[in-house]
């Protein structure tokens, strides 16, 4: 007990000092990162790690290292090149650099470390330093004032450290150590940060909006359709951002591009009444027309002009109000006793320390910090709601109109239908080829054999017997081939037992240790069943081939009129949906059913692939169970 009080100022001083080092380090790290160097982000982890260890040793608070495991070293393809996604590398250094950069940057723990290092000197670190500060201050004052200072210093030591620990654990720990309050505070804090970000972006938008509006008039700046077409990249980035912020998806609203022009028999291209020798001019004209005709172009522009105004109301005012109230009227009051203690300076009437802000002279002295705190807390609590409101506003102009939605839907259906027809045709060709080269050929041979048997059976029964045995072997082989073929067209176990058991049968035949959990209160419609079965088959084969995994698990469930299948493995991750690859094939085949494929595969693993297909369940046969193969 006494030991704790005696040690607290020293420990506080150490932690406080470390927080200053951390602050300096993070500033240097940020400056260095502009040069593209990333190594130091990994090196600077020594400090949070030290603090984690100290918290364990001094306060018994166990904070595990939250970092993701290191990415594996690159392995060459058979031809000696190194591959990452669709990029090939001759040597490994760039690949290693990229992997390390992604590993550090995509790890939220890195960013939490930085936030903690930036904020701690002014919060937890300051609190931890207070006891030592009090004791040190005792040197400067007469002895009768020094004694209470020293006593207070030792007395509040453990409390100050407790504050420090409570402040630091949410930043330094893994995500799951957060209590409900901190989780809420994190959500609100993130929303507040995003409101501030929206202010910053609106500021950049103003000159952009002016530029675009001016460019409507031909000949002033640039070429309007081209500029607007390029602006779509920016608008799409904003759509994705709003989707990420609010969770309400905002789809791309643009009309699909016109189909490529078809040449006439004489090789020219017809547009209206004019013939073009080459298609490129025509394509350009069509693109310009589409941009002008597309309502989304004009809605984009309107949004860009109006957004700064909305931002001022929804984002700028609350952010400024909250910041000013908190730091200007509350936070400055909290720490005001330090300058008062050390000097004879007295704060201005109304507790507004920052000279930028007017003092609240018209309320009693004690009310100023209370008002500051309440206003700041109210803004903080409203942050999520404000962000949602801002998202709604974005959806109003950036989301597609009903007719644009229909146009896109038609384009998408055309694409997936073409895909489906192509796949089906390819499948039929494969079956035809297999039958032609396999079973059909064997039966011809069998027929020939039997013909020979017919001729030989009287003269040479021995030879006839041999030929008969051959014929029987051929028929057995033909059966095996047919069975494999049938399995490839539609596995019998799928018709007999449905998706759940068919996937279980797959799992049993897999060389991996596969755990299957199925929760399907009925039978999935036949086409979806087959598509999902083959998708899972493909995914499981992928896991076996590429992921170097030991275990995999498959979860199949149906809710909200959607079938959801999750396939995860403990392999080394780093998978990607590259065009023409296996995952892309799965995605395209599911798209026929409006299904989607989501992939989460950080380097180092684990990999999770989620398939979602809207579908209804038929017959009420129940199958709910879980088992390991």
């Amino acid at each position, binding site marked *: 007990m006494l030991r704790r009080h005696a040690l607290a100022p020293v420990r506080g001083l150490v932690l406080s000092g470390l927080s200053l080092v951390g602050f300096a380090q993070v500033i240097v790290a940020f400056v260095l990162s502009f040069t593209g160097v990333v190594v130091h982000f990994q090196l600077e982890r020594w400090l949070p790690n030290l603090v984690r260890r100290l918290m364990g040793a001094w306060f018994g608070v166990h904070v595990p290292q939250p970092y993701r495991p290191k990415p594996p070293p690159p392995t060459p393809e058979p031809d000696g090149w190194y591959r990452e996604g669709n990029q090939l590398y001759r040597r490994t250094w760039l690949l290693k650099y990229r992997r390390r950069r992604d590993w550090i940057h995509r790890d939220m723990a890195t960013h939490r470390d930085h936030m903690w290092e930036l904020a701690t000197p002014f919060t937890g670190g300051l609190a931890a330093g207070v006891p030592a500060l009090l004791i040190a201050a005792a040197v400067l004052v007469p002895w009768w004032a020094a004694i209470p200072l020293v006593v207070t210093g030792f007395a509040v030591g453990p409390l100050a450290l407790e504050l420090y620990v409570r402040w630091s654990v949410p930043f330094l720990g893994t995500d799951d150590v957060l209590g409900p309050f901190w989780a809420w505070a994190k959500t609100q804090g993130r929303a507040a940060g995003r409101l501030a970000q929206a202010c910053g972006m609106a500021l950049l938008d103003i000159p952009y909006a002016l530029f675009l509006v001016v460019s409507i008039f031909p000949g002033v700046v640039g070429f309007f359709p081209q500029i607007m077409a390029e602006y779509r990249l920016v608008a799409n980035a904003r759509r994705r951002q709003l989707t990420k912020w609010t969770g309400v998806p905002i789809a791309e609203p643009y009309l699909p591009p016109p189909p490529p022009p078809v040449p006439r028999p004489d090789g020219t291209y017809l547009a209206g009444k004019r013939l073009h020798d080459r298609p490129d001019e025509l394509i350009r004209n069509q693109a310009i027309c589409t941009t002008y005709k597309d309502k989304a172009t004009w809605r984009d522009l309107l949004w860009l002009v109006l957004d700064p105004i909305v931002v001022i109301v929804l984002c700028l005012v609350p952010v400024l109000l909250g910041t000013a109230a908190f730091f200007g009227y509350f936070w400055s009051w909290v720490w005001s006793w330090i300058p008062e203690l050390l000097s004879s300076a007295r704060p201005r009437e109304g507790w507004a320390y920052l000279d930028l802000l007017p003092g609240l002279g018209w309320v009693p002295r004690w009310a100023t910090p209370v008002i500051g705190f309440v206003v700041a807390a109210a803004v903080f609590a409203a942050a999520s709601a404000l962000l949602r409101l801002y998202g709604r506003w974005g959806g109003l102009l950036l989301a597609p109109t009903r007719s644009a939605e229909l146009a896109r839907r038609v384009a998408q259906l055309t694409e997936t239908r073409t895909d489906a027809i192509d796949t089906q045709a390819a499948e039929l060709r494969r079956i035809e080829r297999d039958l032609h080269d396999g079973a059909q050929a064997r039966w011809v041979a069998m027929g020939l054999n039997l013909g020979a048997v017919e001729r030989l059976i009287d003269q040479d029964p021995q030879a006839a017997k041999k030929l008969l045995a051959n014929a*029987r072997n051929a*028929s*057995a082989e033909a*059966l*095996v081939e047919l*069975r494999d073929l*049938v*399995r490839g067209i539609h*596995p*019998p*176990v799928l*018709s*007999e*037992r449905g998706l759940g*058991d068919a996937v*279980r*049968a797959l799992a*049993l*035949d*897999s*060389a991996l*240790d596969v755990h299957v959990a199925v929760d399907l209160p009925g039978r999935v419609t036949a086409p979806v069943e087959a598509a999902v079965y083959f998708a899972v088959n493909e995914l499981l084969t992928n896991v076996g081939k590429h992921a170097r995994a030991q275990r995999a698990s498959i979860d199949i469930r149906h809710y909200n009129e959607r079938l959801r299948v999750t396939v995860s493995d403990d392999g080394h991750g780093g998978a990607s949906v590259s065009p023409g690859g296996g995952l892309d094939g799965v995605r395209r085949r599911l798209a026929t059913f409006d299904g989607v494929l989501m992939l989460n595969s950080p380097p180092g693993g684990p990999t999770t692939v989620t398939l979602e297909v809207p579908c209804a369940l038929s017959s009420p046969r129940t199958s709910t169970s879980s*088992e*390991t*193969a």
Partner: protein
Amino acid sequence: MRVVLAEDLYLLRDGLTHLLTAHGFEVVAAVSSGPELVRALDELSPDVAIVDVRLPPTFTDEGLQAALEARRKVPALPVLVLSQHVEQLYARELLADGAGAIGYLLKDRVLNSDQFIDAVRRVAAGGTAMDPEVISKLLASNARNEPLAALSPREREVLELMAGGRSNAAIASQLFVSEGAVGKHTANIFAKLQLAPSDDTNRRVLAVLAYLNSTSS
């Protein structure tokens, strides 16, 4: 020996009836659908049932379900299940009660009538007859199993035949070795898999199948 036969394809049903009759079996019922099979098994209490997995009216796994149901009512009722394809999943369900007297074969095996009749007799006598393809799938999904990896290629061969339900004598004649050599191999297999050795063919097969079943789960 009284047999109930369930097969929906007329030609195959007829062919099997002839084959069985020619080998001295009495086919007391040759039915073509699930409900008929359930009734026949209930009323005729045959010595062995030969059942196709897929039967009308639903053309799903009616035959298999009827067979499993009948074995719940009459434990260890000898059933030989035939199918156009074999699944580990079904094999496990059939073996789950551990009572023996069970067979699971591809329909192709009917082509070799001697072996097929042998399998029917083995099942009727309380033994097992597992299709080689089931066995190889069971072994393949146990590929990473260490004790199995310790078996020599010859022992593996013997294990496959043994799991199919063969006696030492049958294995010996198939591999062209003496019965004593097979005995030695089986003793080694049991030692490596840490199973209690047994001379009784049926118990021995069940032990091996139970081992393959349990270790891959």
